[in-house]
């Protein structure tokens, strides 16, 4: 019975299963080739560089599940990055308030996207192209020059291991408590992403609103006929997307201790988020996949770039090779067409 349900789980989530296997293979190989592989230091560095794209990919997942695209996720991340670079200092209470305001900024921006798409009846891709430019404009107003003043302790604590976190804020005997030992070497950024995925994404997926998002992407007419709250779900999806993008921006500010309204960087994050979503097994047609898959997809993208450091490849060749690897990875998903016996199934 258990085997049967496991088998079905895998077959219903082929894209996701492929992505997980690919990530494991790539990351294990990477660590074996790395001179200091399988060490806490490598893991911490890797996860630090993955957090922002992971959050942005999760943000992109929601519009894609609806069957659309959000071209503003990178810009919203940049905007919130700049907001955070202004607010994350002072007393602990002020810092917490600043974090809250940063997340609120992104969430409200996502809400605005949703309202425009639903009540303005504009297709997501074009609506967010416009709002993305607006977000960039706001970011440049807030921070014409890169810079910022982010609390140093916070930056240190959240970008290192659990032990460093406890050491900085002096809890659990400064990190030496016996119950903290098993977790002491885990990178905090990894835990942050996991925390958001488990306590924000998973409950959303199990709510009626979340299920409506899937239903809309799969068959909007059927969803409407079933009496599902279509508008609410669309707005919620964009709002949650804004929240995830803000998580990315907030973390980037903590990690770099600054804000930077870099248009090229915002664009690159948006495009990479789409790649990560597809790598993670979410269909661009909507209706299947999920944010956990996108998380895996983002990790795969990052691991590919880690290889350039240890393999000593000409940096000029990097985009070319990244493109080839991405194409290869995505075409794993196309393997299903080889197994299809009824060619009509390809179009379903």
């Amino acid at each position: 019975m258990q085997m049967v349900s496991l088998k079905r789980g895998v077959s219903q989530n082929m894209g996701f299963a492929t992505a997980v296997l690919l990530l494991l293979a790539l990351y294990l190989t990477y660590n074996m080739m790395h001179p200091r592989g399988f060490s806490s230091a490598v893991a911490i560095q890797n996860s630090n560089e993955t957090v922002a794209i992971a959050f942005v990919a999760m943000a992109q997942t929601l519009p894609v599940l609806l069957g659309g695209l959000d071209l503003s996720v990178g810009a919203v991340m940049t905007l919130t990055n700049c907001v955070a670079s202004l607010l994350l200092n002072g007393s602990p209470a002020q810092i917490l308030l600043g974090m809250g305001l940063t997340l609120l900024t992104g969430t409200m921006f996502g809400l605005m996207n949703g309202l425009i798409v639903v009540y303005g009846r504009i297709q997501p891709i074009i609506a967010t192209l416009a709002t993305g430019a607006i977000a960039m404009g706001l970011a440049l107003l807030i921070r014409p020059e890169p810079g910022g003043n982010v609390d140093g302790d916070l930056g240190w604590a959240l970008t290192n291991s659990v032990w460093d976190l406890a050491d900085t804020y002096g809890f659990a005997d400064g990190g030496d408590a016996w119950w903290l030992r098993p977790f002491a070497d885990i990178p905090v950024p990894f835990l942050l992403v996991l925390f958001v995925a488990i306590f924000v994404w998973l409950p959303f997926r199990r709510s009626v609103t979340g299920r409506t998002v899937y239903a809309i992407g799969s068959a909007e007419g059927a969803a409407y006929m079933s009496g599902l709250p279509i508008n609410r779900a669309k707005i919620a999806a964009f709002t949650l997307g804004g929240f995830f993008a803000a998580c990315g921006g907030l973390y980037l500010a903590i990690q770099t201790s600054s804000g930077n309204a870099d248009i090229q960087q915002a664009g690159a994050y948006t495009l990479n988020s789409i790649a990560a979503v597809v790598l993670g097994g979410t269909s661009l047609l909507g209706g299947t996949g999920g944010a956990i898959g996108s998380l895996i997809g983002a990790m795969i993208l990052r691991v590919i770039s880690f290889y350039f450091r240890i393999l000593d490849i000409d940096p000029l060749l990097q985009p070319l090779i990244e493109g080839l690897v991405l194409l290869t990875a995505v075409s794993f998903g196309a393997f299903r067409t080889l197994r299809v016996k009824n060619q009509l199934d390809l179009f379903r």
Partner: protein
Amino acid sequence: MTEAIVEYRGISKFFAGIRALEGVDFKCRSGSIHAILGENGAGKSTMIKIMSGVLQPDEGTILLEGKPVTFSSPQAANEAGIVCMFQELSLVPDLSVADNISISHPPRRLGLIDRRAQVRRAEYLLARVRCEDIDPNALVRELSLSRRQMVEIAKALGRDPKVLILDEATSALTSRDVQTVYDLLGDLRDKGVASLFISHRMHEVDALCDTLSVFRNGQHIETFAKGERSEGEIVRLMIGRDVEAQFPPRPPQPPEALCDAPLLSVKGLKWGKRLNGIDLEIRRGEIVGLGGLDGQGQKELLLALFGVLRDVEGDVRIGDAKGIPSSPAAAKSAATRLALVPEDRKTEGLMLGMSIADNLLAASFANITSGPFINPKKARAEILSGISKLQIKAGSPADPVMTLSGGNQQKVVIAKWLMINPDIVLLNDPTRGIDVGTKQEIYKLMRSLANEGKAILFYSSDYAELIGCCDRVSVLYAGRVVSEQEGDAITEESLVAASLNIGIEAA
């Protein structure tokens, strides 16, 4: 006489100035099964859509249990206890059966969907419609059309309807499932539920309903109790004119010259687990029927012949060519041309958003080009000939095909394929969900195509059609031909017996 649960007073609805319903007064009682009859385009669908909140009336009021109500969305109608099962299924293909059954009001724990409770609920409701074989965790996209329809019924049942609307709900069901639905509706009637039942199958209406209402041209013509009118009278009310014999006569003997070699011959056709060695022959001028219960390989056989399936084994000769075409594109352009009218006209037959003209030309662009470009003169001539040949009732060929009624949409599909002048026509249940008048036109067309020397392979889930239309019928069971019947030996008893593979030979 129990009180009316739903009452229409002077309901009118217009689409772009064209009347779809006009001044309809209508009543429906609790504890009854009420048939709505009428040709396609008579206003039945509009009336149902108004009741279920999809459309809002332009004039008039609706009373629910004596109180005026307005439904602004299907959600509002659902909450008032009016549940509708649409012809176009309202299931979400990428969600599981259990998700779909409890889609709008799932069981929850701590505000989140309780998946275990949801599966239990699905199991309970599926058991009520005797479909224990459906796995609640399977995705709806993995199910066949007939299974999906049963899931749809389970879903409707789970909403505790006061008024249950079934719009062609049994059109794709197997006979066993149809019986289940009959029993279920009987149960619901005894519990005081009002069921509104739209079907184009008269024997279903006869077996099931206690009250009948006839619509024509957007008007409510008459409501009467079952048995008050003969079948002939009802049909006359529906189409407003007399009808002759339902099926065109079979020629006593196919013309000699056409009889010699089969145009299509199939030996030992196998595909996966669905086709297990099919033998079949069709000559020019013949209509050969495929019978049997739903899902015995009929659809797969048609798809295999049309080049849609991969890894098909067996000996196939089409005209002088050996083997199966490699794709639909090859099938329609071979020396002996094949055409397939597919099962689902909305997804496989038509591009709904495109114009009638573009749909008509979709298979025959090769005939109307000058060099690489479409020749508008040739195209126009082809379109007009297609429209007039099948008497498609359309405003303008430039209108999107989705503005047509179901019957006219199906005519567009058939006309599209006739434009390639096929030698072999494969028909997959072409009359499903179509009004009586159009059905008869299709029967006549099939016979005249056969008389022109085409070979026709015709799958139908309606036994009466097989009996009335076909020269021969091959009954399939578990991917094999279990019985071949010819001419007057084709009877309902013999078909049913063969379908169940119980080996009773017709007398």
